[in-house]
């Protein structure tokens, strides 16, 4: 079966029609629309930052002229499918009245650009060569896309800035064909430098490579004559994807160059956090939009716009859940097994009701509760009041698993937790059991935390499913589209297998739980990024500690994070180089995230939140807020251990 979920990123959908059919409009609406309304999206440089798989390339590709053109051509055929996407792009000012307004091109900042940094030239020359190549390739990409869309270059003219007449000649003039010819000459000359085995000496560099070439300073728009003879203007947008491939200094230079006032072209940088130094990642991971960008020293909102695809700006789980559903449904429509059976909704593959607990299990749980009661010397009357509290909670709560009939196991697990809590709050059993029914120092009552703890205990002890249903699958993806699709893809494959064998495609919660946890384990095993053995070792060590705490009998904490005192984190200096690199790549690759200055117990903490995949693998809570207390020294010690 050709499973599009397994293709993982939209980079794999090479055909534009196939690509657009899986693009969900929500990220565009959620992350970019408000900035378009402020006119920030095209007037200033925009840095779009996110972990791998967070959707940077999808956004970049959707804004390319080729995609917009394809979208406009398809509207008539399958309007229903693309209306929302067209609307989202229209709200971002990409198109209006069936005409594109933006001429977007996406360039991947691959090794060619990084290689300039290795040439033995002065830094200003290296930066100049890089920006010239970027400009030449942008011009080529804009004009080639217009050609592919059916416009003759004779009908395309660059609109030059009014005060730039003197420099028009240096870019080949305003006629598209001449502009293209000059861009190709510059590209070829610059490529011969980076592709050479040994870089040519400065004095032997070709004139085409070193002569002033600044089309971004000259071109304001492209005037295009359509088939109907109507002329319209397109605003050029250069989208530089994978900017993390550059050297840090190059990235800094590029960002500075893009903020120059002379530039009229709209420009975006799409990047992972890798491009930053460990210190910068550790601060940028949590930076608020108003903060100074550490790597450039520039104030965001004033000189450039910083959009983070995950993290503070978009940490609302509910929004991602909606986006995840929408994505999954779009992908599902591409699989013939489901198409043929009219299954168009991913949610319809997921059973969300747990089976009734067997009598044998109920008896076993009753025995366990009785043992706990005896061991802790809890009186019958106290037990009854605790049972009443659990019953009341389960009946009144809106928890999805709160059906009493199906939750005898949860009932007993909660009861046992409450008995332990009761005993802890009465400072242990008395020497005189017959009179031992003191009141606890604080009331003991069932609540959502006890319910969650009970579910997690049952997950580990009785293999009761915990990770199932669309919302939890979306939550464990920690707002990373690629992780969500990969997890969902495994479920889809199992469902398709069942359908092919003539069985119902519905997946039981137990199967969902099992498949998801297996896949999480596989994802972590397959990590293959710098420092990944150390990152995996750290994540596993923290995950194990969180699990041990979660399984404490009184269920006092359900941690999925590790906290270090903020003052220790702030002093994380060069002496901890390895730890800083591990943290940097862990954050950049979504293994964990940093939340600094979290106030708890009258103290500020820096919280290392485990990513969803680690949470899934180690069977931890998905709720935020609980963390185990630790120290930088302990983190450093774990990192120093042999993975």
């Amino acid at each position, binding site marked *: 079966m*050709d499973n599009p979920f*397994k293709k993982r990123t939209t980079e794999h959908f090479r055909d534009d029609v196939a690509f657009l059919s899986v693009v969900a409009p929500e990220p565009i609406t959620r992350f970019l629309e408000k900035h378009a309304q402020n006119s920030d999206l095209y007037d200033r440089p925009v840095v779009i930052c996110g972990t791998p798989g967070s959707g940077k390339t999808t956004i970049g590709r959707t804004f390319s002229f080729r995609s917009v053109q394809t979208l406009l051509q398809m509207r008539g055929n399958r309007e229903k499918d693309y209306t929302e996407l067209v609307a989202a792009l229209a709200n971002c000012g990409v198109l209006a009245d069936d005409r594109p307004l933006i001429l977007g091109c996406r360039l991947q900042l691959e090794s060619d650009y990084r290689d300039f940094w*290795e040439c033995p030239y002065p830094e200003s020359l290296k930066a100049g060569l890089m920006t010239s190549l970027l400009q030449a390739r942008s011009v080529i990409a804009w004009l080639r896309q217009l050609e592919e869309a059916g416009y003759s270059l004779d009908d395309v003219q660059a609109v030059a800035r009014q005060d730039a007449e003197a420099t028009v000649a240096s870019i080949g003039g305003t006629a598209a064909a001449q502009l293209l010819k000059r861009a190709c000459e510059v590209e070829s000359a610059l490529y011969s430098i980076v592709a050479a085995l040994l870089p040519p000496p400065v004095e032997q560099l070709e004139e085409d490579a070193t002569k002033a070439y600044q089309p971004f300073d000259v071109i304001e728009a492209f005037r295009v004559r359509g088939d109907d003879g109507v002329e319209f203007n397109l605003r050029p947008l250069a989208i530089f994807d994978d900017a993390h491939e550059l050297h840090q200094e190059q990235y800094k230079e590029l960002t500075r160059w893009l903020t120059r006032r002379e530039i009229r072209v709209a420009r975006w940088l799409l990047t992972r956090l890798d491009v930053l130094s460990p210190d910068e990642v550790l601060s940028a991971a949590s930076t608020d939009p108003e903060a100074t960008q550490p790597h450039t020293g520039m104030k965001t909102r004033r000189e450039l716009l910083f959009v983070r695809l995950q993290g503070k700006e978009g940490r609302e789980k509910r929004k991602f859940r909606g986006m995840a559903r929408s994505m999954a449904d779009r992908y599902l429509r591409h699989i013939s097994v489901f198409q043929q059976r009219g299954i168009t909704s991913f949610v319809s593959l997921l059973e969300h009701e747990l089976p009734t607990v067997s009598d044998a299990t109920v008896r076993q749980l009753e025995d366990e509760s009785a043992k706990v009661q005896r061991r802790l010397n809890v009186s019958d009357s106290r037990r009854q009041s605790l049972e009443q509290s659990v019953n009341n909670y389960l009946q009144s709560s809106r928890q999805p698993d709160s059906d009493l009939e199906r939750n005898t196991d949860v009932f007993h697990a909660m009861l046992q937790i409450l008995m332990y809590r009761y005993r802890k709050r009465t400072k242990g059993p008395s020497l005189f059991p017959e009179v031992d029914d003191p009141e606890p120092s604080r009331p003991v009552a069932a609540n959502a935390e006890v319910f969650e703890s009970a579910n997690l205990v049952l997950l580990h002890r009785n293999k009761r499913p915990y990770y199932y249903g669309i919302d939890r699958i979306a939550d464990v993806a920690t707002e990373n589209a690629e992780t969500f699709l990969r997890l969902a893809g495994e479920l889809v494959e199992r469902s398709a297998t069942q359908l092919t064998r003539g069985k119902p495609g519905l997946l039981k919660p137990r199967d969902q739980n099992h498949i998801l946890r297996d896949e999480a384990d596989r994802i972590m095993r397959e990590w293959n990024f710098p420092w990944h053995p150390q990152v995996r070792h750290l994540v596993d060590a923290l995950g194990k500690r969180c699990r041990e705490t979660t399984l404490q009998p009184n269920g006092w904490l359900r941690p999925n994070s590790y906290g270090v005192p903020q003052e220790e984190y702030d002093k994380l200096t060069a002496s901890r180089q390895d730890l800083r690199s591990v943290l940097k790549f862990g954050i950049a690759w979504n293994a964990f995230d940093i939340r600094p200055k979290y106030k708890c117990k009258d103290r500020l903490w820096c919280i290392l939140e485990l990513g969803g995949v680690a949470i899934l693998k180690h069977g931890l809570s998905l709720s935020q807020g609980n963390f185990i207390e630790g120290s930088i020294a302990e983190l450093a010690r774990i990192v120093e251990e*042999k993975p």
Partner: protein
Amino acid sequence: MMRNRGRWDDCVQHWGDAAIAFVQDFFTDADRKVILVCGGGFDPRSRIVADHVADACAKDTHCVILREDVPLTDDTLVKRADDNTNAIQARFDNHQVERINMVSGDQAVTGGRTAVQRVQKHLESGTTDLIVDFSAMSIGVAFPLVRLLLEYAEQKPGGQTVNLHLFAIDEPLTDGAITSIASDRATPVHGFGGQLGLDASRGAAKLWLPQLGLGESVPEVLGRVYNWLEPDAVCPVIPFAPSRPRLGDDLIWAFRDEFESTWQVDSRDIVYAHDSYPLDLYRTILRIDDIRQQVFRDVGGSMTILSPFGRKMLAIGAMLAAIDRDFPVVRSEAVGYRMDQDKIDDAEQVRMVHLWLHGEAYPQDNSKEADQ
């Protein structure tokens, strides 16, 4: 269909005892002035060629030992590399160790570029023979190095013919015992970018020839290269190995998802190549390219892109084809290594291979002597 002759179709080559006999006979000539470039790595094959060359002509040889520093390599392997480097140094009076940082601080793969710059400084006129020992070098270093030395030899420095010899130790088990941790970036090998990414080649139909290898992360790494390249067609290279007849089946099984879901490969697309004879793959690649050039001549042309992984002998074949036709070579370079000592201990009898790439074995009237 007639194909264009390849530069190394009739390459002079020696195997096993014949290769050793060649070294003992050829390099003992007192008039020879030799530069040996070899890897001082953890690979157990590091010392073999250097030892044979030292036996033949230690006094007249300048040995350049490239010590590749790769960040994610455990201490045991680093210790092995130290031992091998010291052992090679001890065999030559005139030696120089060049430490090459394979990965820069920002994780960019810069080893190949650094290596050619360092080795270039050692090239001096009067040299009669350049020897590259491919055995313990990474592909990212060995490929640009061979190209550099070939270009140098072709220039006939001082009007003198310079021989270029490539040596390697053929031992499949050792190849299989070494697992690399790949960089997260797919990049052209330095100096092997071809015309990739240039507007001039935008219309060319891209054929990707990945060399398949076993290993947990190999499919992912090749998947990364595939995503980066976006080829129009994929013809995976599968080695057939007399010592391991089921290797092909194992590889096809390991890559079943890629074959079916993303690469769209069927049995007609598979390229089989002998895993011990580099020129077999070399000739096959050239034949494929010749056919495609004719087919796609009027519709933008064809571009063949190579991605060698795994077996060294096949990588050499791919390198020769890439140099001959300026094919791009794209890989995810290693940023770390692991080695399975048990497999190394099981290693069979090693075999030395010699390919004479340039020089007096061929007619001297132009730079592509082997064509004649």
